[in-house]
């Protein structure tokens, strides 16, 4: 039995929580629970997913209000102690707002919501989020295809931060073709310690062939392998 215990946080307005739960519980057969955002602790969960969606209707700024939900105190504690946290789309925005990842996500440069499949280049093949791609000959080109669906995915940070991200191999994924104006084509990045991942594309929406794509599941498999 896998030692991974996934917790999928549900904020008011989350809408990829079910995709994440389905991928982990039904496709990958992992111990998975939803965590209501008003809970004060993450309980015995050791991998936290902050799902995509529109928490609090994206009021004020995407993720700005969810960042102060009661459960976030314990998520920050978990992350600061080296616990694994994955933020997808709105979850990535929440991680940036919470200061767990550097930078911020601005309105797409086109001002349009983008919803399509994109090709990502795996920039860091040795992270706990990408190891299963390296082991799979299907990904020998170092590329995967997953969907994006966001209006605010234009990643920005100051030049010192960008230098640090590149020097420490913190950029995990880059877009092959930039859909949103993101600095340096950054699609996903992790903290320096490598236990917190934020990404705009949706691996949880591309994890079984029945939906057309299953490249995303290898991200979760990597995490599962890193724990066992």
């Amino acid at each position, binding site marked *: 039995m896998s030692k991974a215990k996934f917790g999928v946080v549900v904020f008011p307005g989350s809408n990829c929580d079910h995709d994440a739960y389905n991928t982990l519980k039904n496709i990958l057969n992992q111990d998975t629970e939803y965590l209501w955002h008003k809970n004060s602790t993450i309980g015995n969960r050791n991998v936290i997913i902050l799902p995509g969606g529109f928490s609090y209707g994206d009021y004020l700024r995407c993720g*700005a209000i969810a960042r102060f939900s009661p459960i976030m105190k314990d998520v920050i504690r978990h992350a600061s102690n080296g616990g694994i946290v994955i933020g997808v789309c709105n979850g990535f925005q929440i991680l940036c707002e919470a200061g767990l990842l550097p930078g911020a996500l601005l309105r797409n440069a086109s001002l349009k919501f983008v919803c399509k499949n994109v090709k990502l280049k795996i920039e860091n093949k040795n992270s706990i989020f990408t190891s299963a791609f390296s082991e799979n000959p299907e990904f020998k080109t170092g590329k995967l295809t997953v969907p994006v669906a966001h209006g605010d995915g234009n990643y*920005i940070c100051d030049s010192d931060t960008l230098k640090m991200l590149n020097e420490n191999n913190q950029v995990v994924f880059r877009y092959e073709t930039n859909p949103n104006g993101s600095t340096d084509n950054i699609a996903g990045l992790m903290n320096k310690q490598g236990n917190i991942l934020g990404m705009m594309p949706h691996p949880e929406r591309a994890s079984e062939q029945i939906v057309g794509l299953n490249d995303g599941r290898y991200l979760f498999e990597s995490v599962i392998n890193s724990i066992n």
Partner: protein
Amino acid sequence: MYSAKIKVTLRKSILDPQGKAVEHSIQSLGYNNILDTRIGKYIELKINTSSDEEARIITDEVCKKLLANPVMEDYNFEVANINDK
């Protein structure tokens, strides 16, 4: 009682695509002397205090913690005593 009027704008160094789109639209109306259009947020709140200094401190804290994200936004505000109104 004090009121605070807060303006939050994208930092100068950050391209504001929404501002640019509006600027182009203004220029298409024939106003060729309109430059540097920037779009921001305006927030009003009331603070239950009798101290001007406290009103400023609280407003500044709330801006820092929640209303503005220092990575991408600047803010400024005015506070005013509204007891007499």
